[in-house]
Every structure is written in structure tokens, then in C-alpha cells.
């Protein structure tokens, strides 16, 4: 295992300490409770947005805490959902009286831990709503799985819904927009390499020199199928077509397109994939109105990428464009 770390058990705490000093203008970090909170929280009469999940997906979620996005993030151990105590502490730290929205990626662990936190918050009379993201078309949603995973759309949702929350909209409206964003976005990912969980010390799986995994999530896990490595053009087709189909995108539609790196893929390659994506969508007369190319929701040092398309309308575009100021996403101020 080759990593810039000290002890595997200290990875998350030390990275949080680093974040705290690098972004002291934007966030407060509680190293004891392991939560990241917006500097000016709690904000009176603003719905507070909390998300969380295992570490190893940086900048998700801690990098998205700040003006116009999340009020708090709860990072768990690497690839391990945080615990209800973190979420409850975060809830106390950010609740400004207008209620709290939990943004939960659909993984059994995340769902159950947030569920327990919500139960506890409810007993204290705090108004909590939850939205679950499940945009990964690699998982066939059916009786035979835990349901589609929450992946790339989570980033876009945190931004867009954060934009609305900043206006002082009520919890029900904020939660509705969150559900709408989730319903209008889909993703699919692939890996060229696995990654190594620090505590495990070796790669989660092994891939041959000419192999790739299609339909991976964001936990360094194997995907739906292993196939021969092929060109960026074909890989982009493989990822994009199911997304387009599942969303029912058609000529004239406008989308926000994200080409996301899994952590170990150079930006140069992500732009090549974006070029292919643009070509595919252009061929179907779907226009990319907004875009994001880079590492936004990662799996440690995994090489690979995911593609997310979000069907845009006036409302989503407006809150996407709204100012945001977080460690990892910033515009308009």
C-alpha cells in the first residue's frame, strides 16, 4: 500500500484537521465528533442541509459545506457510513429552527444510520426530512437488490437544493426539490483500477492489464461486469446510453453533464471522455447547457470515471447557477 498517510486508523481524523486549517474561513470541524459544519451555522430560519457517508469520496461531502450548499457533513471511516451520533450532533449544530434535510445516498448502511438519527431527532422535536439519492443505472432496481446506489447526482443535488435553501424556502419545498433533482438525474461509472482501503492494506479487487469494470459504485467495489478495456469512445457509449435511456432523454432536451473522475484519472482523460459525451449527445440533439468535469465524487485513488446527466429546466438551472462558496465548488462570490 503506497499512500501519503501516517497510521491507517488516523487517516480520517488527520484529513479533517487538514481541512479545518485549509478552510478555516468556510467551515468549522469538530474533530471529536467528526463533523464538518458551515462556519456561520446555525442560520436562523434557513432549512439546514446535512449529508454524510464514508470517507474516501472527497471532495464529497465535506468539500461541499458552505454558502449555498451543505450546512454540515458527517464523514465516516473510509467507505463506512457515519454513525447516528454524528448526524445528531450535526443536526444540533445547524438547526436554525426551519428544519433539517438529510441527503442520503442509497446504501443500506447510510440509510439505516440516517434513519436512526432521524428517529432520535424526532424524539427531540426537531423537524427532519430525508431524501435518498439513487441514480446509479448500473444497478437494476428490482426485488433483487438493495436498490440503485446514490452516486453523482448527489453532488448536483446538494448544490441545487442548497441554492433553494439559501433563499429561505420551507422544508417541504426544499425536500420536494431534492426529490425532483434525484428523479431527473442518472449516472453510471467504470473503473480501470481498484483502490486500497487504508485499513485493508491491499486493493479491494485486482484487474488485469486489459480489463475494466463496468457499473461500479463509489466504494472501490467490483462492478456489474468485467470486460476488455476499450477506447474512450466506446467506454463513453457504454456509460451514456443506459443513462439516456433510463432518463428518457430526447431531442431538444437540455442537460447538466458531469464527467467525474474516480480519483486517480488525470483531467486530460476526463476531457477526452467529455468530448465523446458531447459528440454522443449532439448526435441525439440533446444539448449540454451546463457541465462539470473533474473529481467530484471519488473512490480514493481508483482510476476510472462516471457520467451523470441531469435533465435541466428553468428551476434547476436557476439554483445551479446561484452563488456557491465551499472548499470544492465556488462561483458567484
Amino acid at each position, binding site marked *: 500500500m503506497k499512500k501519503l498517510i501516517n497510521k491507517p486508523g488516523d487517516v480520517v481524523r488527520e484529513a479533517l484537521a487538514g481541512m479545518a486549517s485549509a478552510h478555516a474561513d468556510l467551515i468549522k470541524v469538530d474533530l471529536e465528533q467528526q463533523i464538518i459544519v458551515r462556519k456561520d451555522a446555525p442560520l436562523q430560519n434557513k432549512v439546514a442541509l446535512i449529508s454524510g457517508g464514508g470517507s474516501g469520496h472527497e471532495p464529497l461531502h465535506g468539500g461541499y459545506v458552505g454558502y449555498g450548499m451543505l450546512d454540515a457533513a458527517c464523514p465516516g471511516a473510509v467507505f463506512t457510513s457515519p454513525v447516528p451520533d454524528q448526524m445528531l450532533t450535526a443536526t444540533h449544530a445547524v438547526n436554525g429552527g426551519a428544519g433539517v434535510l438529510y441527503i442520503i445516498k442509497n446504501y443500506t*448502511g447510510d440509510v439505516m444510520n440516517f434513519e*436512526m438519527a432521524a428517529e432520535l431527532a424526532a424524539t427531540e422535536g426537531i423537524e427532519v426530512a430525508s431524501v435518498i439519492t439513487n441514480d446509479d443505472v448500473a444497478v437494476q432496481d428490482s426485488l433483487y437488490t438493495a436498490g440503485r446506489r446514490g452516486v453523482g447526482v448527489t453532488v448536483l443535488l446538494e448544490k441545487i437544493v442548497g441554492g433553494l435553501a439559501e433563499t429561505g424556502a420551507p422544508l417541504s419545498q426544499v425536500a420536494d426539490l431534492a426529490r425532483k433533482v434525484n428523479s431527473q438525474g442518472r449516472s453510471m461509472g467504470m473503473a480501470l483500477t481498484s483502490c486500497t482501503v487504508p485499513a*485493508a492494506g*491491499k486493493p479491494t479487487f485486482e484487474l488485469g492489464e486489459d480489463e475494466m469494470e463496468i457499473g461500479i459504485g463509489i*466504494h472501490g467495489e467490483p462492478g456489474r461486469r468485467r470486460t476488455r478495456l476499450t477506447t474512450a469512445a466506446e467506454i463513453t457509449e457504454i456509460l451514456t446510453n443506459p443513462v439516456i435511456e433510463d432518463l428518457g432523454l430526447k431531442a431538444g432536451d437540455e442537460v447538466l453533464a458531469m464527467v467525474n473522475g474516480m480519483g486517480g484519472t488525470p483531467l486530460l482523460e476526463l476531457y477526452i471522455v467529455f468530448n465523446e459525451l458531447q459528440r454522443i449527445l449532439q448526435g441525439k440533439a440533446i444539448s449540454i447547457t451546463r457541465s462539470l468535469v473533474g473529481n467530484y465524487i471519488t473512490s480514493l485513488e481508483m482510476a476510472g470515471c462516471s457520467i451523470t446527466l441531469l435533465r435541466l429546466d428553468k428551476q434547476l438551472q436557476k439554483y445551479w447557477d446561484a452563488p456557491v462558496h465551499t472548499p470544492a465548488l465556488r462561483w458567484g462570490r
Partner: protein
Amino acid sequence: MPVTNKDILHWLQRSTQVLHENNAFLTQLDSAIGDADHGSNMDRGFSAVITKISGMQEADIGTLLKTVGTTLVSTVGGASGPLYGTAFLRAGMATAGKQHLEGAEIVAMFEAAVEGIKARGKAQAGEKTMLDAFIPALEAGKQAQLEQVPVTELLQRMAGSAESGMKATIDLLATKGRASYLGERSIGHQDPGATSSWLILQALADTVAS
């Protein structure tokens, strides 16, 4: 001879040790069909448990088990945190105030634990989860209780059935938890959660036998 609160303490100590020793093994199982963290999750949780209960020599069994439950919920995370946490919480509720447990009480305790896991995880037998170790163990416990076997044997039979249940997960297709994303590719691998469940049940049988 009933199981005493001392036995429960020793069981928890033995579980902590066994899970620590099997950290890498459990993570290896989780690498194949999950995200390579089950070993460290369980190790982290039980090492917090052992610290938490270190001063609780005199506590009744219910209090002990509830403490285990809340500690696991607060320190494990992932899927196994809420599931094991709920299991121990429910087990603690079923044994509230007790200083020792007869066979029937042991079975009732595990019944409550299993119900808790099912309620929290919305899974049932055959989905390639920890329930595939717990449910056969519970069935074996019920049967042993019907046969009025001594507690040591009851626990041996439970652990034995947990072990066969765990091994049987190899051939199952996962339909719950992270392994379900793999579809057919989940077949051929032993479930990590079923494995940790067996380790914990075996630790109980071994503790009481010795």
C-alpha cells in the same frame, strides 16, 4: 447451569478478541463482494465495547447488552453498525434486569435480536446476510430447547447451525446489502456479516463451555 452476567462479560471479551484476530479475514471476505471494511468495522466497534464495559462487572445482563448495542451503533457505522447495534439493544431489552439466563431465556434473547435485525434491515432468510447465520442458529436453539438439552449443548448447537448457515451463504445470490449490486457475481463468496455472526455465536458457546 445458567449463563451468568460474568459469562456474558467473558463472551464479549472473547468476541472482541476473535473479531480482532479475524479483522483481515472479514475484510478479505468483504473485498470480494463488498467494500473491504467489515473487519475494521467490527474490530473498531468491539474494541469500543470492551472499553465501555470494562467497569461493568456488576451490571445485569440487560444493561450490559444494551450498552453493547448503543456502543456499536455509535462506533461501527456502515450496515453492520445499526444491525448489530439493534440486535444487542433488543437482546438487552429481552434480558432486562437479569443476572443469569436459562435456556429458554437465551432463545428468547436471540429471538429478539433476530427480530431487531429483520426490522432494521428489512431482510429475511436466504438473502446472503448475517441473518443466514442468525436464523438457523435461532432455529437450532428453539429445537434444542424443545429437547431440553443443557445450556452448553444448546449454545454449541446454535453455533454449529450458525456455521453451516454461514457456509451456505457461499452459494446464495445476494439480494440485500452491498453484495446485491454484484448480481450473479455474488455467488461463490461467503458473506462477511454471516461470518462475523458465527464468530460471535461460537465465542458464546466456547465461553460457556470452558
